[in-house]
């Protein structure tokens, strides 16, 4: 649980960096990578469903509240929460870097599409079909480029954490700990 809260706090940092730095980058294509979404997807895939959805909810809610957000409050919280949970559930069936990367790419794409679809459903005047057609391809591309990098570091970090825990932990051997941890299949690869 402590790790889940730590991840949720990490999502707040990602939102701040997103608004202050990433969205100001003059990138071609009229779109910017959604680092919060990528973080939620990756943490869901490496840390399990509870961490995934807590990260998603807190990151999404921060995106809803941080000025200059003008869409519905709760919209991103809902979408990112579901995405984080989905990734957490998927993580139980995935092993190794490549399958997780594929899942991350699909999940990030689904998240971007869900944001666009929700905007259109609640008839946000800024989200029209033409706007989606213009923004979505570049957003997917940038998210796709970001996914492997973030996933690599998340795997590295969770591996480190798991090793340190196993070293400091009392009785249970490391490999058992991974399988029976509170968030099942948390941490290490393979």
């Amino acid at each position, binding site marked *: 649980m402590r790790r889940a809260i730590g991840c949720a706090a990490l999502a707040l940092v990602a939102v701040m960096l997103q608004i202050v730095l990433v969205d100001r980058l003059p990138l071609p294509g009229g779109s910017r990578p959604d680092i919060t979404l990528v973080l939620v997807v990756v943490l869901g895939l490496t840390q399990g469903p*509870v961490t995934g959805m807590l990260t998603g909810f807190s990151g999404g809610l921060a995106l*809803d509240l941080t000025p200059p957000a*003008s869409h519905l*409050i*709760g919209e991103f919280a809902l979408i990112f929460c579901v995405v984080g949970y989905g990734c957490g559930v998927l993580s139980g069936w995935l092993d190794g870097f490549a399958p997780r990367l594929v899942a991350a790419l699909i999940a990030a794409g689904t998240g971007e599409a869900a944001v666009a679809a929700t*905007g259109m459903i609640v008839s946000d005047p800024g989200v029209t079909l033409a*706007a989606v057609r213009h923004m979505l391809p570049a957003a997917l591309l940038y998210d796709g480029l970001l996914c492997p990098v973030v996933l690599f570091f998340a795997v590295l970090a969770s591996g480190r954490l798991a090793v340190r825990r196993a070293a400091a932990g009392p009785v249970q051997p490391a490999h058992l700990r991974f399988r029976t941890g509170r968030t099942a299949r948390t941490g290490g690869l393979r």
Partner: protein
Amino acid sequence: MHDTRRTRVVLATLLALALALITANYLGGSASLRSIGGAVFGMAERGLSSAVRPIAGFAERSAGPAGSSPRVQALERELIRLRAQLSSEQLSRREHAQLARLLRLPRRGAYRIVAANVIGVGQGYDQAVTINAGSSDGVRPQETVFNASGLVGTVTSVSPWTCTVRLATAATAVAGVRLTGIGQMGWVTGAGTGSSRPDLLRLHVLGASTAVVPGERLVTSASVGGRPYVAGVPVGVVTRVEASGGLIGHALVRPYVDFAALDVVAVVITPERSSPGAGG
């Protein structure tokens, strides 16, 4: 098994919370939540942006010729101040005499302006920016924001240390304008991110669209109490007139402002209507 059940409980709680928030939006009960969020996250945003300012400045410098060195910023602020003076002069010369005669208004001082920096840009489809001036600087909703080049947008919501500015290019933005050459009135709307030219504005003129020619310049026209737009702020140049047989003529307008590289801006603080001297 226990783990799965707990997971589901957490999921259900979070989803219910998110749906409750969305419902509160529709019922109109989210204003206080947004202002609290704006105050908390706005303050964090302001602090972080001053920390990452060199990085953001570098990214912008490498993208275009406009720099963000202290000297350039100081010059930009000066330019904005002079621009504000100029447009209020234009206003007073052209309209103030008539207005004063019509309304028997006492002559008010020039508008006060507050200079600020853009500290955050809207995520995804939001076409808005956050600037580091808020209600503690006297900023209120629906006040005009412009920069050294021209009209940027209008303030939509204010928190103590930051405020949100809806850009003139947003799909929901509408600004009344006057064509400087022929004096015709009209209004411009943002094209939104969806159009083929999201950086252009769209001009609408009632009737006589034949009189509009490319190269015509637009300035904002006066609104009641200077809100949401004060008069005389340069908006852009007509680039192409669209053929139309209807009552409303359309044209495309290239704005003077480069919305992709906003930095130093100014908010026009309009005086309270009840106390004319308050703003000066």
